């Protein structure tokens, strides 16, 4: 059914005021939307967002996503010492000594190394040289000479102190120079390589990287996974499967005469130098402790203060006002600021974090509890009084049962949110998992350790969320938990 024009005219004539009001009312949200849009446009320019997004470092996102879930074998021939080493993740701790642990794709002969990088890429290198063979068969010979790094007989010179230009060794610079693109066109260097007097660098794909500088030849190959997650590279258990480890743990012959085998296996895992499971566990525990202790103290101190701030318990107006303002003050100063003050007084550690949480949440919980106490139903108290109960019995049986659900559910709710805040407070200096995370991230290396920390943090946060949600429902009933 549709309305004709005549009908609408008649309607607007009869109910003009109503329609006008409704049109005005519908304009308000549109106006607000326009203001919001204008604000976003203003901030786009105020923060210069276009430029920041334009300058986003794509290479870094590649590094991030690769290094978080991959590990690399780093093969290095040092020019100065003329020696060769294989490490995992470039960490000295993980150096592979001897010959039996050398991966099958690496062959060593006469202090020269041949590395099969997979997919037909092969690198052959030694003291001051590297021959890289691409899958199409073309060979690139990189040498370190008196004139710097050279590739396939070409060397580089710096022009105008700014650009690198290239020419054959021994040729006169005046005879003509090539730039990097032209060099790649001629097939002298691979497409996408970088070449300068001090270095030659080329990454054929995501999983391989070659680098030659005056002091070292470096070949890296990436593999998916977290290497040495269970046992460190120096551990005799490194690289064993679950079954083998089980066999070791249950066998009669002790590896370490001091320890039972299962203890030995556990300690090898626990003190893995690469992943530091023990430190991670302690850091997680610190964060949990911060949240738990802080919330407990806040609830324990907040409840009696809440009674004192409630009008139906404390008849002194001045005292109530003073307490209310104290609650506002404690709440108003942010947790981070409290934690900064406490760091000065108590040093770094979980105690500092838990004090900061306790201070802010005493304010919040005290206020909530005092409101709950003021809102109780007086009939229950009167009923208890009519049985001849004393003051303590009145509170025990008349008041406490009424505020207990609020007390439990609010305390648990704040416990949940405090686990998240404890991570943040920790990151700002109080310690725990937050600090470890920030340190690992700001040094910009070992992204897989960062990822491990993040995954553990998320697991703890989500588990605590679910656990306390479950407890809250269990203790207060589903209805109360919803509110």
């Amino acid at each position, binding site marked *: 059914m549709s309305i004709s024009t005549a009908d609408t005219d008649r309607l607007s004539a009869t109910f003009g005021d109503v329609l006008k009001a409704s049109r005005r009312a519908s304009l308000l949200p549109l106006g607000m939307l326009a203001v*919001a849009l204008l604000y976003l446009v203003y901030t786009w320019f105020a923060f210069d967002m276009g430029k920041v997004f334009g300058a986003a470092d794509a290479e870094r996102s590649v590094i991030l996503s690769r290094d978080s879930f991959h590990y690399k074998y780093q093969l290095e021939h040092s020019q100065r010492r003329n020696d060769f080493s294989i490490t995992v993740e470039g960490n000295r701790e993980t150096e592979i000594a001897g010959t039996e642990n050398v991966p099958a794709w690496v062959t060593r002969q006469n202090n020269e190394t041949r590395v099969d990088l997979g997919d037909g890429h092969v690198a052959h290198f030694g003291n001051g040289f590297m021959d890289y063979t691409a899958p199409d068969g073309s060979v690139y010979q990189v040498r370190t000479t008196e004139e710097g790094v050279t590739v396939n007989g070409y060397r580089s010179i710096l022009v105008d102190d700014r650009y690198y230009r290239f020419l054959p060794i021994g040729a006169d610079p005046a005879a003509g120079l090539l730039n990097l693109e032209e060099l790649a066109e001629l097939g002298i260097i691979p497409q996408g390589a970088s070449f300068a007097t001090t270095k030659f660098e080329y990454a054929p794909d995501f999983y391989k990287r070659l680098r030659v500088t005056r002091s070292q030849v470096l070949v890296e190959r990436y593999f998916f996974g977290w290497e040495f997650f269970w046992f460190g590279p120096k551990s005799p258990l490194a690289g064993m499967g679950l079954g083998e480890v089980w066999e070791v743990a249950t066998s009669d012959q002790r590896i370490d005469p001091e320890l039972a085998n299962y203890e030995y296996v556990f300690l090898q895992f626990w003190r893995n130098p690469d992943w530091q499971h023990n430190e991670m566990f302690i850091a997680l525990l610190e964060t949990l402790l911060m949240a738990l*202790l802080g919330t407990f103290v806040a609830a324990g101190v907040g409840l009696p203060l809440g009674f004192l701030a409630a009008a139906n318990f404390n008849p002194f107006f001045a005292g109530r006002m003073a307490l209310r303002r104290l609650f506002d003050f404690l709440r108003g100063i942010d947790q981070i600021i409290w934690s900064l003050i*406490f760091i000065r007084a108590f040093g770094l550690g979980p105690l500092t974090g838990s004090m900061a949480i306790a201070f802010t949440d005493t304010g919040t919980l005290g206020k909530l509890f005092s409101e709950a106490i003021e809102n109780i139903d007086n009939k229950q108290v009167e009923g208890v009084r009519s049985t001849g109960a004393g003051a303590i019995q009145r509170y025990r049986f008349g008041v406490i049962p009424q505020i207990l659900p609020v007390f439990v559910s609010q305390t648990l709710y704040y416990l949940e949110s405090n686990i998240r805040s404890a991570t943040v407070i920790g990151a700002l200096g109080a310690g725990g998992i937050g600090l470890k995370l920030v340190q690992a991230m700001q040094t910009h290396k070992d992204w897989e350790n960062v990822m491990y920390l993040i995954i553990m943090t998320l697991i703890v946060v989500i588990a605590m969320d679910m656990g306390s949600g479950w407890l809250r429902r269990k203790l207060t009933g589903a209805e109360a938990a919803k509110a």
Partner: protein
Amino acid sequence: MSDQALSIGELQTHFSEMEHKRRLYTALFLGASLVVFFGGFYIADDLNSGGFWQGLAKFFDYPYEIVVESIEADRWAGLLVDYFPALIETVNMAGVATLVGALLAMILAFCSSRNLGIFAPLVPIARRAMDITRAFPELILALFLIFLLGASPIPAMIAVTFHTAGALGKLFSEVNENIDSKPLEGLQATGATWLQRMRFGVLPQVLPNYCSYALLRFEINIRASAILGFVGAGGIGQEFKTAISWGAGADISALFTLLFITIVVIDQISSRIRRNLVGGTFQMA
């Protein structure tokens, strides 16, 4: 319990048994709490680099130092003006994050409410998405983005937006599920399309609640943006960090005053608007 009525004696034994059990649980709970409390305190005190009891004596030293330095400073009020742009930056970070986050939250909320006739398989997906965005600490995301985009307010803004979308989305979807379905049915009877039903049947019911939740979130986001400044996201947090590491007492107190006043003012304004919007105060669940 059996069908036959219990004798008074049996009832009494049964009752006192249950009473004993309950008392036992209460005692166990209290005992466990005390153990956690004192044990936790002991462990925390042990792990801390400075002790609790030594620290207690020094507790007021730092605030005292700051106050003395602020009083001795030549132009303390001038510092307030100097740091005002940094404050504006932080407020803007929170503003953008709240606006964009609320918009995303609205989309997520409409996708996760069962009563609005949305494509059903979308509901659990949207809910899980909200769970994940809520669980992810802002700080971690901000650090990642700072690595990718460089140190500027924008990574922090994106991180806060991400968290806001999940946190508000959950609240919004609860609002959506509690609406009165009669206007929707009325609109359906006139042959309104889905969009028209949402626009005229749902939005008028939920917008006041949306706005008040978003305002509450705005307050929270100001604090969050200030905190993220500490890891290099600019704004007042970054100034704070610099001032603290230089030990500049007057600057610290000026920044602290600015932040405190802002939080209180925005708290007051938003609670007034919220009262007008929904009539009566309400708690953020």
